[in-house]
């Protein structure tokens, strides 16, 4: 077989990595390269160094160590039965690429995933070698995210946590049954067990240390996962229920939703229609409501049902609870304001701050929230009341955003 040059390998192995939605480079322990020998810093917030024409941010060198894989997961471009071009990086190639890109300020760090070759342990070992070399040989202090191979031994997962800021295991399919059908070699129970072990590791290693005791080596600060939307029949309610369980059980930092996207040389077992991207968007909105707005999963959408694609989930909730509206922005409590369409968490904080001094008008709300278009029918201000609009029949129609066009 012809030896591929590095550029060709990079093209193949980054192309193969683009279906992983995870891009975050935030949430690492703060550190910089002052006083060290290498490069790199993390400041809590990650930086997106570029944006691709698909609107997604590029903050990390997101690549696969190899796209050879012994598994045959139908939704995956790298499944063994797919005829995509294959390549494999050496550990050194990944290390050098990461450092070269980092020194030119192209990236925040490395996101390394891999197809499974030989065995889970073998593959995981190779990935850990990359992270270890970056950290120990090159004193690299940038961000590292390692994708865990669920079948790899717990010891290797723990070692990955020593060098990575974040680790993740992709659940991929919301239902265990679909996992069995579309990814026959994947073991839902095994994935859960691996996530549980990692949660314990993270909690254990990052627990506050009692005075006088040795500080343990820095450890990954979080784990995340990805769910593919639309490759199976799972409804949004099921997906969010799975997310809620994952957040609760394994303390995940993020669940990424990736609308199933056509892949070159797709499997015959996959649906031909892809879900609209707006579905992914609505899931992210619902996810935010659960994490930052105090909504229970069941309040947003029942299992077995889909989210309303025409309006955002908070607006959909408000339309179902019109009796709770309008709310007076000058008197309502924080929780109530957070449940009001069009008022974001920061906007609500500013409303609370401002109303200590003034009675807010609609213009005031507009200044602190950016827009009152969606909030208007649901709020009362010093100079505004929606009157009958909150209960009006045309309300829903007036809130529906113009239809997003699909590519297909």
């Amino acid at each position: 077989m012809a030896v591929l040059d590095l550029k060709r390998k990079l093209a193949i192995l980054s192309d193969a990595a683009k279906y992983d939605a995870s891009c975050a480079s935030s949430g690492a322990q703060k550190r910089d390269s002052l006083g060290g020998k290498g490069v790199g810093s993390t400041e809590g917030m990650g930086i997106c160094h570029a944006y691709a024409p698909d609107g997604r941010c590029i903050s990390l060198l997101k690549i696969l160590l190899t796209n050879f894989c012994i598994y045959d997961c139908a939704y995956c471009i790298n499944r063994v039965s797919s005829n995509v071009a294959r390549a494999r990086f050496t550990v050194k190639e990944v290390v050098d690429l990461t450092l070269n890109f980092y020194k030119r300020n192209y990236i925040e760090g490395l996101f390394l995933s891999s197809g499974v070759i030989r065995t889970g342990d073998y593959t995981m070992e190779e990935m850990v070698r990359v992270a270890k070399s970056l950290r120990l040989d090159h004193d690299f202090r940038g961000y590292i995210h390692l994708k865990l191979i669920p079948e790899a031994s717990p010891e290797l997962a723990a070692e990955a946590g020593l060098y990575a800021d974040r680790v993740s295991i992709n659940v991929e399919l919301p239902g265990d049954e679909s996992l069995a059908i579309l990814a026959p070699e994947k073991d839902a129970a095994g994935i859960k067990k691996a996530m549980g072990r990692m949660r314990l590791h993270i909690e254990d290693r990052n627990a506050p240390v009692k005075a006088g005791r040795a500080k343990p080596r820095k450890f990954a600060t979080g784990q995340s996962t990805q769910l593919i939307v639309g490759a199976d029949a799972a409804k949004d309610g099921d997906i969010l229920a799975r997310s809620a369980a994952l957040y609760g059980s394994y303390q995940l930092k993020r669940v990424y939703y990736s609308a199933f996207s056509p892949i070159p040389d797709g499997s015959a077992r996959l649906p031909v229609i892809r879900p609209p991207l707006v579905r992914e968007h609505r899931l992210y909105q619902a996810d935010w409501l659960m994490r930052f707005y105090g909504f229970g999963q069941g309040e947003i959408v029942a299992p077995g049902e889909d989210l309303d694609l025409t309006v955002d989930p908070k607006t959909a909730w408000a339309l179902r609870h019109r009796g709770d509206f309008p709310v007076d922005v000058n008197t309502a409590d924080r929780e109530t304001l957070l449940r009001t369409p069009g008022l974001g968490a920061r906007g609500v904080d500013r409303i609370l701050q401002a109303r200590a001094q003034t009675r807010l008008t609609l213009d005031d709300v507009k200044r602190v929230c950016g827009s009152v278009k969606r909030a208007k029918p649901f709020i009362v201000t010093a100079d505004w009341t929606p009157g009958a609009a909150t209960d009006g029949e045309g309300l829903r129609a007036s809130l529906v955003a113009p239809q997003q066009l699909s590519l297909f």
Partner: protein
Amino acid sequence: MRVARLESEIDFDGWRVAARVLRTEGVSPEAVVWTVERDLFDQDLFPPPRGEGGGEADGWGTVQGVSTASPQDSSNPTRPLRGHPPHEGEGKILTVPAAFIDLAQTVILHRSPERLALLYRLLHRLERQPRLLDNPADADVAKARDMAKGVGRAIHKMHAFVRFRLVEDVTPETYVAWFEPAHRVTEAAAPFFARRFANMNWSILTPDACVHWDGSTLTMSPGADPADAPSQDAQEEMWRTYYASIFNPARLNPAMMKQEMPKRYWRNLPEAALIPDLIAKAQSRTETMVAAQPTKPSDRVLKAALKHARDGSFGESNLVNLEEVAAGIQVCRRCDLWRNATQGVPGAGPAKAALMIVGEQPGDQEDLQGIPFVGPAGQLLDRAMAEAGVPRDRVFVTNAVKHFKHEPRGKRRLHKTPDRGEVQACRWWLDAERRLVRPKVILALGATAVQAVFGKALPVGKTRGQRQALDGGEQGLVSWHPSFMLRIPDPEAKDRAYAELVEDLRQAWKLAG
């Protein structure tokens, strides 16, 4: 009218001194003109600015200036104030919230000419409204906040979009970037690069100012020209390759991209040149992808997959009962035999049995019925078991391979012996059955069954009748497969083999107790 003169566009200290004087003197915001023009009165060199804050041309000549120019600058006709804060008693001591200083230090970096006047207006209003900044709904506060946000964003974008280029043939490693920030944030953004690239030498050149790091100190120099930076870097080709490959054409969303990566930055981003072409080709790439029929996996890949399936570990399965084994066998793809078989044939018999009989593989009848040993060979086995006094309903009967391997020949299916790989792949299921049934004795019938049970080939004729301990703790016995007798032409040899089978069955049953 008063003119307040700053040393530079981002001279916050100068602004503070001037503002303190103006404020102490009770000058109203409308009566101040803020400028950084070096010599406002030398109209040959610096024509007076027009537009906002500029005032009437003849008004400029009559204003009393407030300048922050250095005291030794004697050519300046206005009253120098830097280093000369108001004397005590000259005015009351000004206090402003710390938050205002933070806000003002950020806002002054904004390129808007209004910023200096806005800050002074806020300062002025703070006297009567000390809590003004706590009202985010106030128009001036909101405006300042928006400017601060713009500046914060410009700093963030500078952190993100600076692209260093290696200066060739220089040691130590030295990198230089050309960047055009949206606001005057070069100084403010610099410490981040010092923390991140502490062990590199680097410079960032911008039209406003340049910043340099030598491994220990940050220094500033006046603005530069793009030509002062290296024009290329060998890694940029790699970076563009990455940028083009990580983009998913099926999710094209240029509006989102432009929102986060405004076009004003594209000029200095090596990857941005690719954008028009990536967008233009996205639709057709996607259509091609969707229209393309799935291709058949290559033989090499299939072989590799098959090999893995066979060599995959057994004994690790989570199967907890025989029903699950039976269900699993139906969807088993560990080898390719499922394709042409009707169904997988799991073992049959009690869930706990002292004796397990393992045959080779289902035959035609078994394949159709889904039950082991129901065809001619099965009937022969039934007869032998009856003669040996072995009750079939107390024995677990199964096969080494669960799918029927055959070759179509006219209207018939010719039995084909499973190869080692298939036996190996199927051991996963046999082992699961062994683990669940927990027999004391396993009787392997024929070479294939021997291979599966003992994990190695043994000559049946020589080893039959001998007890051998198996890894799972069972007693292993070997005998002839009944279908062997069906194929022996010599009636005498056939009878002898049959008798030996009966004998082996009897011994097995006795051992099983």
